[in-house]
């Protein structure tokens, strides 16, 4: 059993920036537990000699030439913004420090 606790779910919700409700905490704790139990079998299949696959295509070295391409105008960039001011995206006050 993976036994995900309510606290762990709360921590995950914080990492994922979702203000989940107390009821959701309970529901998700149960469901994540159940799902993780079901999928944990992946740990039993492959030995250390099996390399992981991160990409479905065997491509390497795909590069772009360093040439300017047309982007968006300021108006287009801001068109979908919930709030804008002075050509910038306006957001509520930021609490944390930049990382």
């Amino acid at each position: 059993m993976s036994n995900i606790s309510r606290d762990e779910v709360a921590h995950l919700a914080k990492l994922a920036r979702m203000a989940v409700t107390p009821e959701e905490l309970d529901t998700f704790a149960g469901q994540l537990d159940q799902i993780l139990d079901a999928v944990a079998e992946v740990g039993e299949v492959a030995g250390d000699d099996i390399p992981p696959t991160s990409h479905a295509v065997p491509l390497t070295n795909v590069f772009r030439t360093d040439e300017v391409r047309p982007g968006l105008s300021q108006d287009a960039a801001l068109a979908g913004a919930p709030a804008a001011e002075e050509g910038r995206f306006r957001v509520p006050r930021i609490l944390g420090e930049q990382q």
Partner: protein
Amino acid sequence: MTTTAELMDYAEVVERYDPVLGLEVHVELSTKTKMFCGCPNSFGGDPNTHVCPVCLGMPGALPVVNGTAVESAIRIGLALNCDIAQWCRFARKNYFYPDMPKNFQTSQYDEPIAFDGHLDVVLDDGEVVRVDIERAHMEEDTGKSLHVGGATGRIHGAEHSLLDYNRAGVPLIEIVTKPIAGMGERAPEVARAYVTALRDLLRAMDVSDVRMDQGSLRCDANVSLMAKGANEFGTRTETKNVNSLRSVERAVRYEMTRHAAVLADGGSIKQETRHFQEADGTTAAGRTKETAEDYRYFPEPDLVPIAPTREWVDQLRATIPEMPWQRRKRIQDDWNLTDEELRDLVNTGAVDLVAATVDAGAAQADARSWWVQYLNQAATARETELADLAITPAEVARVIALVGSGELTHKLARQVVDGVLDGEGDPDQVIEARGLKVVSDDSALLAAVDEALAAQPDVADKIRGGKVQAAGAIVGAVMKATKGQADAARVRELILERVGAA
């Protein structure tokens, strides 16, 4: 807050503790476009005008790696004597912050493109220190936030923030040293010398503007102390916001004295990020996070691995310029300079400028003299760096050439240079505008010569009598009369001609 002194005397610090440094330098590459999109990579600009769906993190947009940025990364790695990865990937570093459009940074993580290198750093007294390089990896910059409201425009107390993503996605190379230990009291100097050497190197390679004041070169300084005789590193702090070479040295020194005071008092150092305060040279703690950040790195599925071929790396290796310090050594030999003369050149920051002036056709001694003396004084007077003076090596070479051909006297040449520095144009434009050309019209000069000879008949007689060196007094008088705008050699010839001594 303890009641004891917050800082320990520096001499005592180095007597009791060994400092250990770790330096992380972020360099913005000067590519034409951003790391993963075709938006222009340029400093400034109206907010949100160098943006597109990719660097705004819009739904559906995908990154594509800038090949030139990869080349720059490999070249930097080679210049730092690193191994170049035969295969490496980008990863996603997941954390939420409003200046990061995707809420993950696309960065290399456990597979850097360059690793295990070193940089030999020359200290002021000529001692060479080898700084080991852990890794150099590629990543992208964030946007910029402007905090509105509150007293200072800083993050604390702001009412809201405004975001500009022009810088988001600008290519960065992060260069991380291995722990630098055993430097003792010279640790702060080593830190500055390392960043200086790195800056010179990157500038010589032409991969970045390396402007600390504009943030295209940023240094985070990790400092810890271990008590003499101990064999485990102490807890480190990471100081950010170090925006000049001088600040690198000050920040390290400050943290050493602060750590020592805390440790000597029986306290312990908290592992934290600190911000350097330029005004008073101190550091201040950042806001501490409630929980350790978990970045949940995983390989970036939108970008395929990079596997530089041997041939490609060799081609890039061939483009690495001579290291600045090697070049200095060669210049010393080529120009036959004493150690002192070389040091003057290096300390005034004139090496490249002199070399460029020589490349533009000037004699080495003339070029050196102009930059180390007159122009260095001008830079001091104008409170700027020599390299930032508004005169180019080619312009200095032009002035030197004009002096050589007799079209300018030294005195006039200085006036021409002043004009150029004041933004009046190139040397020829200044000469034209200020009317500074040497008087080369013989008839005008002859009148002045005759007048001077007439005024000093005894001297004229001496010359006639064979004392040719006496002509100097007449030359001086003529130069004075022409306000220095005459060619002294020609004046001398005319005098000798006139008295029949030629």
